[in-house]
């Protein structure tokens, strides 16, 4: 793919403001598709499957009471895949006997919908292996939301193993400033009011020194080292803007909420090819408060990236 096509496909994460703060930046999702296939489909699902096989303890977790919700996820995602990508996925249904076919991987999976013994792995784990997205299932229980199941191969520096079973606010408690003006309460309230048939989406961004998708907390000692190697000269190539497209669906039967997270990455040298993006990003990064920069993992090399961006702006 050439770089203009990369740019066009990249989900630009910033709004019209020159400053960035945590906020609920969700908007209604239309069309309501939980899944998106990109050119890196095959590479990314292969990587996901490899990680799931080698590191199941950090990539998959589920509580037993999530099985019904997991089947709802299977239904939602398969329906979306065969509707939007009919040449790549097929489904044959005879009552509850389903045959799901992934044309690209040449797989045909037969199972009885709703019967978890008819699959070799759990429903969420099964369907997650056919999509690039990470899939998180938050169950609404007793007036709160809990991360009760997930298939997570491409985390932005957090641990599914550790956070599994926690409430939304517990999970986000390490984020500095996230509790200011009760933002955590307000976002929780928003999530709990998501209704079936009316999904939402938002974008979240961070910077990454390196180009790994699997930036788990478990391997931080490994990939985190690259932060020390960023210079003004190599920032364009080494540093990547990482954008998570997060989509939120209410599952009507179990009353759970499905988060699908599609992680996109673009090296800064490509991102800055579009001058308005370059200028906006420079303003935001320059102004970014230390507590946000720290949490997004940028502190160690923000100066180098700003110097790189300044030089790029001079070139134009």
């Amino acid at each position, binding site marked *: 793919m050439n770089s203009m096509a990369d740019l066009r496909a990249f989900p630009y994460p910033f709004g019209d403001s020159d400053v960035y703060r945590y*906020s*609920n930046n*969700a908007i*209604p999702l239309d069309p309501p598709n939980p899944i998106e296939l990109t050119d890196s489909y095959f590479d990314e699902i292969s990587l996901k499957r490899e990680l799931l096989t080698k590191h199941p303890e950090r990539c998959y977790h589920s509580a037993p*009471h999530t099985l019904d919700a997991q089947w709802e996820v299977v239904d939602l995602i398969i329906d979306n895949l065969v509707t939007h990508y009919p040449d790549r996925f097929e489904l044959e249904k005879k009552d509850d006997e389903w045959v799901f076919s992934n044309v690209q991987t040449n797989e045909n999976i037969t199972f009885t919908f709703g019967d978890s013994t008819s699959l070799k792995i759990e429903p969420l784990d099964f369907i997650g292996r056919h999509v690039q997205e990470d899939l998180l299932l938050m169950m609404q229980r007793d007036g709160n939301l809990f991360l009760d199941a997930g298939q997570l191969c491409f985390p932005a520096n957090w641990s599914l193993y550790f956070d599994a079973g926690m409430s939304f606010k517990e999970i986000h408690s390490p984020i500095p400033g996230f509790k200011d003006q009760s933002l955590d309460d*307000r976002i929780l*309230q928003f999530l709990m*009011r998501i209704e079936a048939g009316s999904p939402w989406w938002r974008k979240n961004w961070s910077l990454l020194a390196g180009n790994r998708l699997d930036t788990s907390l478990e391997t931080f000692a490994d990939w985190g080292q690259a932060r020390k190697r960023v210079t003004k000269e190599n920032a364009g190539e080494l540093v990547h803007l990482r954008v998570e497209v997060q989509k939120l669906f209410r599952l009507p039967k179990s009353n759970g909420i499905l988060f699908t997270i599609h992680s996109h990455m673009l090296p800064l040298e490509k991102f800055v090819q579009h001058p308005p993006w370059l200028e906006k990003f420079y303003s935001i990064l320059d102004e970014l408060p230390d507590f946000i920069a720290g949490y997004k993992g940028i502190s160690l090399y923000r100066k180098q990236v700003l110097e790189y961006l300044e030089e790029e702006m001079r070139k134009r």
Partner: protein
Amino acid sequence: MNQTSTLRVRVRNIKDETSTIKRFTLESMDYSKLPPYSGGSHITTFLSLPSGTLERQYSLFNTTLEPGLFEIAVRLAEDSTGGSRFWHQNVQAGDALTVSFPKNYFPLSFQAKHHVFYAAGIGITPFLSMMAELAEKEHSFELHYAANSKEQCAFYEHLRTVYPDRCRFYFSNSEGTKRLSPKLLLDHRIGTHVYFCGPERMIEDFTNAAKSYGYPSFNIHWERFAPPVNREHKPFSVNLQRSGRQFEVPANTSLLDVLRKYGINVPYSCRVGGCGTCEVKVAEGEVFHYDSFLTEEQRCSKGIMLSCVSRGKGKLVLDL
């Protein structure tokens, strides 16, 4: 609520449950299954009247054995503002209607060891789906249900047949039967969650009694039927308390747009009253809340509104 995602359904069947309550069975227009839903869910129905669209909320259930259908029960209210009258007098089998997806603001407790439902009159409806879900999951529950008489007790035969050991009925105008009393709350085991649905007074009495017996608020749940919302888009004026500025909000413009037009940088995201980002503080004045984000408590506190969809009545003073 402001998003336009709706379902088209056809009335398959209408049955008189009592002299004032009708049950409507709804099916998908294309004979596919309607979406599943959790216990306690409701739908909004959109009724096309000559005077405009009436939005009404009804609890959802399915007493048929066929999956993928919606059922609602509508009581003909004496002071009907049009909704229940329309259902009773105008809706016929075969009619096409628009309804919302199922939504649930009255969910079952997850950690309860035992669930107890207290219903009066048409307040039985949310419990039908809740009991069906608990029965399927083999969880422990019981129902206490008050009506004027056996004849006025909707779903009496259904309940007696499906949950014979778990229902107790209380008929106020027949002799020899006990009245439904909050004292029953004294006898529930630890780990019980209680659910109340009925007239305002009944909900209040039971809630107060449960609290006085030492029930944590966490274990007490109730559902009031939401008052009908008639959206009016009239012009109003706003005063900004801090800057002293004053603006007019025309009928066809949102408060958010007016504020932003005059350079007041209210953050926003969804513009349909769903995300909560464009909240502003209200110092004085009455607000018509048209959002689907704020809780009832937040609305009653009168201190906040979502500027993208909600509007003032006459004159509003904002803390800006």
